[in-house]
């Protein structure tokens, strides 16, 4: 089975969703990416990426009840699907395979 390909930001967002688990929603994903990678992505960019991985079937979304802290608006939370988890595992394997044989001076352990 051919797994969907992932861009750099898609991979980062997917990993963030996996880590945040039940708290994976737009603002939190953006905040978490900023903390971990130091890159301040626009909220719109995060949404575009979330929509792309949603369309690829790597995540599913659920809408919460309205929340006062968000001005009475609901929150859309994302959860990894089995396919999403498989794609992450595959990305990790590819990454490990690519790092094999890279000299220690480059940073390989």
């Amino acid at each position, binding site marked *: 089975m051919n797994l969907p390909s992932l861009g750099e930001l898609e991979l980062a967002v997917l990993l963030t969703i996996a880590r945040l688990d039940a708290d994976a*929603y*737009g*603002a939190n994903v*953006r*905040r978490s990416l900023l903390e971990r990678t130091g890159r301040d992505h*626009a*909220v*719109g*960019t995060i*949404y*575009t990426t979330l*929509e792309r991985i949603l369309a690829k079937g790597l995540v599913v979304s659920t809408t919460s009840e309205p*929340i*006062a*802290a*968000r*001005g009475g*608006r*609901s*929150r*859309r939370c994302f959860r990894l699907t089995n396919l999403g988890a498989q794609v992450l595992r595959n990305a990790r394997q590819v990454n490990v395979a690519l790092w094999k044989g890279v000299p220690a001076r480059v940073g390989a352990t």
Partner: protein
Amino acid sequence: MTSRHTPPASAEFVAGALMPDDTLRDDFLGDLAEAYDDIASCESVRSANRWYLLQVGRSVVPLSLLAISRRGPLSAMQFVGSVVAGVGVVWTIMVAGIVGFVELFVLINGGDGYRGAMAVGEYLRLLALWSVFTGIIAGFAAGFVSALIGRPSAFASAIVLGVASVSLVVTAGSGSHTGFIVFMSVIVFSSIVAGAWRRMRTAALVSCA
């Protein structure tokens, strides 16, 4: 008790009007409001305001592209159609306005045009003023028409329309930088108004149903 910081209503209004997709709007505004509160609490309200406006500006292009890609080929055709219609409105109003002005002047001055009653400089100043006025009307009308047709993203339609119109004027070899900025601003402002109006209309229809 902790007080919550909320974004300025005007900024939220603009953010909502610029959002291309109804289903994403609430989510987007909610996320922005939540982050705004964080920044206002940790830093200052001024920083939060700056951040909010910057986020809105940076999000327009990716969200517009997302809206267009989500709705398929029909949406792309609507988008192109909205820009073509907008350019048509601009040029119809501009040409009709300026030709009308010259004709009216000739009519008033008994066929002699500006030579009859007015110095050349004065006539040209009046014509320039009239052009600016016509340009504003044309920009507003075109932005509104384009935003109403360009369903996927009123804002994106307005931006492309503005760029297309300015490019046509530049290739025709006339206009000034200030004029272009004013023209673009009018088109964008008009698209915001049209977007907000369309959203209110949709909300009214939904509440009726």
